[in-house]
């Protein structure tokens, strides 16, 4: 039986206190935003908790929200407890000038490639990652393509007329 969002939220507040920045429940899915310093401690407590047992990390992705000044780049983590069927979404943000978030490879080995992908797309530096290099794009790419300021199309092309292709 899934634990209620209030109970999990209460546990989070007692565990990291000031580290919890914001919480919400879009579509009944508990979503909390934490400071990067408290992230690993919180996830470790959730994972090792005897009842909650958030032992599976479903997903890890990055987001770029240019309108949030000082917290533009973020990482979103989804955790799932298979024994109690509870899910929780944890977000943490970092400034775009020097984005640095502790690496989740400390708790989950599946974070390895997911963090490399997030680094490849957004340039977030995951401290403590064993091998933070590009994974999907070409190795000599010098920018982080998923950031909002970069265009989708390849700019080095002469054969497509932009006005006819709706760009």
């Amino acid at each position, binding site marked *: 039986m899934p634990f209620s969002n209030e109970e999990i939220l209460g546990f989070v507040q007692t565990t990291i206190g000031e580290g919890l920045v914001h919480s919400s429940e879009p579509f009944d899915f508990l979503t909390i935003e934490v400071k990067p310093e408290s992230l690993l401690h919180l996830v470790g407590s959730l994972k090792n908790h005897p009842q909650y047992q958030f032992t599976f990390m479903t997903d890890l992705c990055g987001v770029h929200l240019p309108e949030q000044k000082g917290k533009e780049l973020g990482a979103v983590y989804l955790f799932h407890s298979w024994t109690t069927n509870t899910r929780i979404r944890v977000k943490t943000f970092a400034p775009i000038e020097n984005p640095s978030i502790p690496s989740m490879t400390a708790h989950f080995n599946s974070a390895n490639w997911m963090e490399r992908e997030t680094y490849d797309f957004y340039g977030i530096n995951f401290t403590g990652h064993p091998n933070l290099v590009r994974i*999907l*794009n*070409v190795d000599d790419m010098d920018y982080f*393509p998923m950031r909002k300021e*970069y*265009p*989708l*199309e*390849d*700019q080095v*092309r002469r*054969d*497509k007329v932009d006005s006819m*292709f709706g760009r």
Partner: protein
Amino acid sequence: MIDTNQPAPPGLEGPGFFATSMDKVVGLARKNSLWPLPFATSCCGIEFMATAASHYDIARFGSERPSFSPRQADLLMVMGTIAKKMGPVLRMTYEQMAEPRWVIAVGACASSGGIFDTYSVLQGIDRIIPVDVYVPGCPPRPEQIIEGLLKIQELAANETTRRRDTEEYKALLESYSIS
């Protein structure tokens, strides 16, 4: 319409002998034994597997033995999206093929980048290697892939024995910087 009773090429026929030009005989032999290299990267690769399977069967056109080594293949079938990371690999594969060699670009992604007009996808393989036949579709039906193969067969049957020596071909390879 596929005519399995292939007529003999035009030539001089008599009791016990048949004389025609060397080009025609070599063309006939080549066109009926094109060994493909299935360079299958994505969804079109699955349609190729359906084409090679028993329902659509390209083996009846002579492509009995798919070769994964470029040195033993005649026909490079590029099926699927080629990303910029994959481009050098495709180029290396093409350069290893021995003459005579033909290239089919199967699918919209191989022909022109397809629906992926992005920074990471090569907008058509004809940017890096010369292509003989383009088969459009996303993915093309097996019948269309077979039609592409038949067009290659027409090319193979009707060109000179040593295409590699013609000026036009040499200029084409020069333009791609392939030595």
